[in-house]
């Protein structure tokens, strides 16, 4: 990245300062930068998805992009069907394309219900995947690695903490007596967890701000070497 008071660096610096100006108070420069950010983000995803997903996965496989350019030397499913007269299983991508177009029907108020078909598809896929993978990785594997011998302080802390933490989340019975005691210990472990998460969150947010200040003072103004 070039350093110094160049046009590109100054442009980026103005946008950076525009966002930071919100800390003083809400102002038109901040609102312009915010609106610009929203628009540019949406446009970025729009272009990226076209070239990196839709074009190679859908239009190349179907053979539609080959009809418009000689960019791809490979025959798509339509070329195989019409030139060679045989069925190519890439023709099934037509279903994906159709479902994708149905998704876009959500933009039209009277036809919005059509988007429920691809939505059902998405929900079914993610539910089916998560049903097995989350159980395997986040439940079974974690429970298995909690079965530890009480040979070190760390192991004792791990077993007691996990069990008591799980007991805390068991709300089917009132937290009284032994259950209440275990839930109390679970609360302490969860407080340590949240405290550690807070500490790491501070670390993360400060790192992001250090990056921006580095750009302003080192890359743009050249005050820091």
């Amino acid at each position, binding site marked *: 990245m070039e350093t110094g008071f160049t046009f590109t660096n100054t442009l980026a610096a103005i946008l950076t300062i525009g966002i930071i100006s919100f*800390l*003083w108070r809400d102002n038109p420069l901040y609102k312009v930068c915010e609106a610009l950010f929203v628009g540019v983000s949406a446009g*970025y*995803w729009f272009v*990226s*998805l076209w*070239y*990196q*997903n839709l074009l*190679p*996965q859908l239009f*190349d*496989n179907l053979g539609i992009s080959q009809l418009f350019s000689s*960019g*791809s030397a*490979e025959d798509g499913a339509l070329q195989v069907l019409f030139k060679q007269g045989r069925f190519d299983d890439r023709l099934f991508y037509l279903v994906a394309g159709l479902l994708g177009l149905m998704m876009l029907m959500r933009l039209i108020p009277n036809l919005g219900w059509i988007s429920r078909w691809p939505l059902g598809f998405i929900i079914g*896929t993610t539910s089916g*995947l998560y049903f097995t*993978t*989350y159980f*395997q*990785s*986040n439940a079974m*594997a*974690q429970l*298995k*690695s909690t079965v530890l011998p009480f040979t070190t302080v760390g192991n004792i802390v*791990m077993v007691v903490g996990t069990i008591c933490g799980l007991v805390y989340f068991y709300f089917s019975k009132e937290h009284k007596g032994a259950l209440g005691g275990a839930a109390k210990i679970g609360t302490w472990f969860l407080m340590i*967890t949240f405290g*550690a*998460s807070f500490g*790491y*969150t*501070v*670390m*993360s*947010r*400060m*790192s*992001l*701000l*250090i*990056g921006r*200040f*580095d750009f302003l*003072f*080192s890359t743009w103004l050249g*005050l*820091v070497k």
Partner: protein
Amino acid sequence: MFDKLLKIDRRIIFIFVALALIVPMFLTITQHISVSPEVQIIYDTLKGLQPGSKVLMAFDYDPPSAPELQPMAVAILKYCFKNNLKVYIIGLWPQGPMQANMAIDNVISDPTFKDNPPIYDKDYVNLGFMSGNELVIQGMGSSFLHTFPRDYLGKPTHQLEMMKGVNNFSNIDFIVNLSAGYPGTVEWVLFAVDRFHAKLAAGNTAVQAPQVYPYVHAGQLSGLAGGLKGAAELEKLVGFYGKGTKFMLSQSFAHMIVIVFIIVGNAAYFITRKK
């Protein structure tokens, strides 16, 4: 006085925060970076790979997370290229492959690699981004070529030299995931590790890192570098110092100022409450 402290304008707090981060940038104080066990595991695993081994790097982050993750990416790439490890780059976030390009540019501009810069399709390939989140990982478990039919340059992936013989995760020796959220490390563990038995290490933003510690303990992750400190530790281990180490002084001051704020805020609160 303590009443006034409690009602202080938050813009004064902002100024203190800014000063705590900016002033250390002008200081040159060398700090000792201690290496945590989970970062050491990443380095030891990389060190155990033979020249020519295949390393898949998943860039699952965007520019906001770059201050934490970009130094990790640069450190790992430099180590891989120096030790002749072949790097396969993908992204579950669209910005990821672009961040990877910036990291490669950083490597190429390093004098260490001036005589032997990394060459595309010999030392590394960038397969680009694919939408689908965890389904991309699921698809890669069957076929990399079907999931990424073209690389980020638009070239058909089956025409790439480095993709010859690389069909799925069984042909990859090590995966390094740099992740800022969803999709990210959790999805890589759920699918690549537990379904396809890949070996995975992660570099996470500090926000996400605490959530993946259970995976390290369970052996599902072969190492974890969390936040800017993790980046500094990796830089120390691989021997290529960069922004991760440079920013640690500002990070130290930032943490101190937050701790001071919490102590002062609580002191003022309890003193005014006693009155």
